[in-house]
């Protein structure tokens, strides 16, 4: 179960909305932060805390791309490959991640350092190609600076 601090945090979230179900997405974010991903246990905790059926929690969680249903690495690379990024070379970045880091979309490096998620536009089209690493934006990516940037994440 969640500890006291987390339970308080979720209480605070609930207070913002007219009903408990509205606290579901924010609470799933909290659970993801606490557990690293939405493990079955994490979702059970959310269901119990909000007093919602587990099926409802799982059904909702599985709809949204940013909820993770598998453990991820220490750093999550979210690379955009939509049109604006694609025409400015995001494919080459994908190739580099494969050849240099043995990292494929949806997977995690063996050392657990990076996971790669393909994104559908992160709103950085004016500085494409772009990615988020965890919650940091990185713009105007090239094969050179991509390696440099990744070096900063351990």
């Amino acid at each position: 179960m969640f500890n006291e601090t987390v339970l308080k945090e979720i209480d605070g979230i609930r207070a913002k909305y007219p009903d408990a179900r509205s606290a579901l997405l924010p609470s799933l974010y909290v659970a993801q932060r606490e557990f690293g991903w939405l493990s079955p246990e994490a979702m059970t905790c959310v269901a119990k805390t909000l007093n919602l059926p587990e099926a409802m929690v799982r059904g909702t969680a599985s709809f949204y791309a940013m909820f993770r249903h598998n453990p991820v690495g220490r750093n999550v690379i979210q690379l955009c490959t939509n049109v604006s990024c694609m025409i400015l070379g995001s494919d080459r970045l994908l190739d580099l991640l494969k050849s240099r880091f043995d990292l494929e979309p949806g997977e995690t490096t063996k050392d657990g350092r990076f996971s790669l998620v393909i994104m559908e536009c992160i709103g950085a089209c004016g500085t494409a190609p772009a990615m988020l690493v965890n919650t940091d934006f990185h713009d105007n990516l090239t094969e050179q600076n991509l390696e440099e940037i990744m070096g900063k994440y351990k």
Partner: protein
Amino acid sequence: MEKILLKNIENPNSADIREYQKTGGYQSISNAFEMQPRDVIEEVKSSGLRGRGGAGFPTAMKWNFANADPKFPKYLVCNADEGEPGTFKDRPILEKNPHLLIEGMVISGYALRAEYGYIYLRGEYPLAKDILDNAIAQAREKNYLGENILGKNVKFELSVYQGAGAYICGEETALIESLEGKKGQPRSKPPFPVNVGAWEMPTIVNNVETLSNVPYIIAIGGEAYSKIGREDCTGPKLYCVSGHVVKPGVYELPMGTNLRDIIYKHAGGIKNNKKLKAVLPGGISTPVLPADRIDCLMDFISMPKHGSMLGSGAVIVMDESVCMVKVAHRALKFFEHESCGKCVPCREGTGWLRQILGRIESGKGKQGDIELLSDITDIMSGRTFCPLGDGAAGVVTGMLRHFRDEFEEHIKSGHCKLSIDN
């Protein structure tokens, strides 16, 4: 043109409330509170403001519908989902000018007698989340938000709700479902959100850019505001230009600026001395325009006459090196991924289109594939539950209308002529 929405954003501290106040920020709240709520709506009506979320719906008309509904509480929801690929126009407001949006929401909430506001922010904007949370705390501290704003007995509570990576949640009824903690699947309309929205109460959903126009309208008056832009499509517009241009970025220009000027005058033209090939003028959901058809006014009324749409004002510029089959294939991967699964024509149709485009792109296209694509888009158009499926079909139709040769060439030769020099 004087900057209204992007005012002061070069100032590195523009998101701080003190900087915002220094340049006249939050004065429109006091002005608005001197007026009757109904008169605030009248002012917005005379401004001619149309929603910037994509459809261009007259804002005051939506507000009047909500106002006419006797149910309370009413909710004001800011659509900050900004998911349309190629779109990054709301982001500078959210990250650099958050108080403009907050001020716009307080005034709109007052006009609509809505005491609760939510900003539905896409999950992919973590920086904006922190900045908005901080700005909301600052505004509350200065008594621009809360129970008794500026001692005038006006209540408005505001908070940020984070989406979790679903494009469809930009559609207003899917957004409301999501806000209620459900899967983001659109609802049937009517009833419209202005009557039955979040938690079954009247709910007004407006885009970030729409709400951010409100303080200026109150400051200079609706009449004066309506002189900006074009007669039936007024105000400033944020155009976000990406792709093969010299200076990509967000440009604040009068509504109805010529697409050619946006690309060549403002964004510096095509980079590396290459030739322009095609433009997606309002995000990837809007039909493509070939290079010789970019003399059009970028507003909600004019663009449909040119076979496309203003959409979110996301101008994606593609030079001669870009393969249109590849772009169409990538776009359909997006739509397949983002289809919510509720209705069959969209759920199945996007998948089929993606599959066929994929095989054409990889050189395995068959005779008859182009006709098959057209058949599927015909079946989808007008038959999907929400405009996502229409958009997907429209993208393919537009590509076939202007670049059919390129698709035929791929099928005939089994490869892409362009990939060789790329």
